[in-house]
């Protein structure tokens, strides 16, 4: 129950600070549009004067695949326009920008003052941006090590299963078990570094090694709670993606382009809101557990909910 309350409070808090969400989406869409623009200009050049997309004679056979078909037919030109470097630059810019926004907004989630203030936002951002970069670099190193470890496990399992012809043992043991191992390892790292940022903002700390150790201690102690909260938010994100897919496939074809762009902006706003809700919920979870601990209440997990033992 407390998890659900934390989740809802976190969502509400993230939505209350709508300015960083809008800021994220604005930069996201501008970057995406800039990277896509050489391709989209070619689309307009190649297709705007063609009748193919509106041709009832071709629709029964080609309707759905028309875009794929057209892009393949013009693939050389499209490929020549696509520049992976632009994409990489956009990716790096956006990840850094996202960290900056997070550094600005996380202390607000941890505070009691509900008013958004750009001055405080930028002040927080300048204070926590560098440690957050340090945490990201450390996380990247650990991801790399975890990837290496799971590759080794994968090779070991594959070797052990080499003689098996059974699809299920290969699939379940080989793919799912190794996948689960990888997932657990990655989840642990993700959670540790998310809570490291949460702890930094909640307690005003900036030493990345200390933060990592403290976050690891917290996550390892409350791993299941942290995973459940994370998974609930993940489910919400998945639901938005699925809803977007449904609307994209069934409602958007033939719809006014204003509706299309509007829907796209709305989906990205929702996704960014959920992303920030991960953090706001985690801040609430962390502060709640810390508060109870400071009041001398031992907090343990029992069957997915808290049970306070005096």
């Amino acid at each position: 129950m407390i998890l659900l309350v934390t989740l809802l409070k976190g969502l509400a808090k993230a939505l209350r600070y709508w300015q960083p969400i809008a800021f994220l989406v604005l930069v996201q869409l501008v970057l995406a549009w800039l990277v896509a623009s050489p391709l989209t200009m070619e689309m307009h050049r190649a297709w705007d004067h063609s009748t193919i997309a509106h041709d009832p004679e071709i629709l029964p056979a080609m309707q759905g695949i028309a875009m794929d078909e057209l892009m393949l037919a013009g693939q050389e030109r499209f490929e020549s326009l696509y520049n992976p470097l632009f994409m990489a630059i956009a990716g790096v810019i956006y990840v850094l920008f996202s960290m900056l926004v997070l550094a600005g907004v996380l202390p607000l989630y941890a505070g009691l003052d509900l008013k958004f203030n750009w001055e405080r936002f930028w002040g927080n951002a300048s204070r926590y941006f560098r440690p957050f970069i340090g945490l990201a670099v450390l996380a990247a190193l650990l991801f790399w090590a975890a990837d290496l470890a799971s590759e080794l496990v994968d090779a070991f399992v594959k070797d052990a299963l080499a003689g098996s012809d059974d699809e299920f043992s290969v699939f379940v043991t080989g793919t799912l078990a190794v996948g689960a191992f990888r997932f657990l390892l990655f989840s642990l790292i993700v959670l540790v570094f998310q809570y490291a940022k949460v702890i930094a903002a909640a307690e005003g700390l900036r030493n990345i090694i200390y933060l990592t150790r403290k976050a690891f201690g917290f996550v390892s102690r409350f791993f299941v709670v942290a995973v459940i909260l994370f998974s609930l938010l993940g489910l919400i994100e998945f639901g938005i993606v699925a809803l977007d897919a449904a609307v994209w496939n069934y409602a958007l074809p033939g719809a006014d382009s204003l509706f299309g762009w509007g829907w796209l902006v709305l989906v990205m706003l929702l996704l960014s809101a959920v992303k920030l809700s991960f953090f706001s919920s985690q801040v609430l979870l962390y502060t709640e557990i810390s508060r109870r601990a400071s009041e001398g209440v031992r907090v343990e997990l029992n069957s997915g909910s808290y049970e306070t033992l005096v």
Partner: protein
Amino acid sequence: MNLRKPLNLTPVIAVYAVVVLFLLLGRGISRPPQDEADTVDRTRIADYDIRVRLDPDEKQLLGHETITWLNADGPPTDRLMLHLYMNAFRSPGTRYMSARGGWSAEEAGWIDIKSIKLPGGGLIEPESAEAEQAAQIDEDLIDRIEIDETVMTVHLPRPIETGARIRLEIEFEVKLPRVFSRAGYASDYYLVAQWFPKTGVYADGRWICPQYESYTEFYADFGRYRVEITVPNNYRVGATGYLDSSRVRDGEKTLVYTAHPVHDFAWAASPNLRETKEKVEYRSGGKVYTVDLFLLMQRDRMDMAETYKSAVRLALESFGREYGPYPYSKLTVIDPAPGRGLNSGGMEYPMFITGGSSWLETYLFPGDLPIEGVTIHEFGHQYWYGVVANNEFDEPWIDEGLTSYSADKAVDTLAPFGMNLRYPKILSDTLLGLHPFLRGWRADFGDLVDLLRLGLPDSSLAQRRADYLLQPGAAPITAKAYRQLNEMSYSISAYHKPALVLKTLEGIVGEPGVSRILRRLYERFRFRHVKGDEIRALASEVAGEDLSWFFDQVLDGTGILDYAVDSVETSDEPPANQDGEVLSIVTLRRLGEVILPQTVRVALDDGRNFDFKWDRKNPRSEPIWMESFEALGGGGGSRYRLREGRAGGWLKIEILSSGPVASARVDPGYRYPLDLNLANNSYRTDADSSFSTRGEMSAVRLLAKWLHGISVFN
């Protein structure tokens, strides 16, 4: 007659006997009467009588075969060439494995010849005293064989004359590979194919018996097969042919199958197979035919049996209606073991096909018709491979291309608006949404294209086009299977492009015209081999016009077909006249090498449409060049003039009319799916950006989600 008593014969017979003996010993086996070669039963060129025992512990086959081979009409030959396909898997260094890469000891397979002999001299006909004398000789040929990987050459003591038959006995031992390519075992499931020493084809005075290589399939003569298969008693067996008898002894059972006329024999065995039988009725040419369908399912996949059956019913109905009746009264379908066993799926053998779909495909993506698609395609091979056979080494496009085209027609009747319409699009698009989230670092343009393909309704035609467009100039259709650049070029030139060529041919002779051609092909080459040239000639004959201009371009070359409307311009400058007419110029360009007659539909802004024929079929004919304007039909006082560039490189349609041209389309009925770029087939003067805007939204959406994905934890 015993030739050891020649002195008892009359002098004439004695002279005759000496001559025959001379021919027999000096030149070879005697020649039949000349006219016999013309009445050869080509369904009995290579007969096989095989006994084989499966040893499940050692994954081995112990076999004995008697091959009776007829030199139907070739010049005498002093050697026989046989395929030993299983040797392709003997080591990582074989031609097959070198091209494929990867090899493990478990995947090793081979065939060893234990003995080979000509029983009684090997001669079985024509019957004569000399033949009987030769029949006393029992010759061991083990020292007269040469084995080069998958090909064995047997140097005969005497040549085999034209029209003569020879009998050869071979004892062999096969180690089956753990299946990774068509044949082998997966745990206790066995798909036994390409397993016995098999004669090559002796045609035009030469042996055609190529090595088994990565992309090649097979080529064999028709014959009568009798095969005794011995397996453990708890095994179920499915095989080519009809089950004649069975017996059980000492924990083993022996099943005897016969098949005629066929050109290969495959079988499957496993204790986990469950057999279901059904009599399938279908119509062909107004008659009702019945086929006994033997479906052998994996015991834990029985719920998929009905899917297989419905696919076979549909295939029989469709092929029976289009091309003629299936010539046998039995068909065996195998559902391969899941996992590793799927590597034996999707294969065709006479009267015997393997289907298969992975667990994920079967249960998560049933709307993708994984079982139906494979089963109908492999059934199609009963027509184009099984009955109308061909040299698959040299001309793989014949069996694969004709099957792709005709099976697509059948599959599309199952899902008339495209295979994937039943596909859970929401699921695939969800994956599409998650893809950048999970694998953003690999996102590149190729992925973008792949992503756009996911979850979109997709007819067989559109799928083939999408694959063809990946490498449209990869290789000519007529390229040999073993001279392909890679798997993609093989699949394009053997499967996708030939299917598109036949669809394009529909645009020239009509869909019924192509059906007539294939029906005639099926009738004329029933139980024979057909060559590409014969198909071209037959197509022209049936269509009633010489189609070589078409086939020469699309089969032999790598040229592409791409016609475009380059521009539509309207001007009220001279030569527009004082009556207020404007001059519109529609410029068409041929961007590819392939030339096909085109229809150009021009729409005026007053709503009138005019079709112009651009009937060029080759680059050599004189260009169209009208000096003066002529009246357009349909009233309205409009006039036109055509001017064509050299070799049909371009065409200008000049139209004098009271209003401007609104749009122009080349190939307005989309009759030519070979056309590389359908977007440039038309031009409208008033731009409409709604479709491009959707593309723009797609691209921005994907990139925005990608950015969200890579930053979601930061």
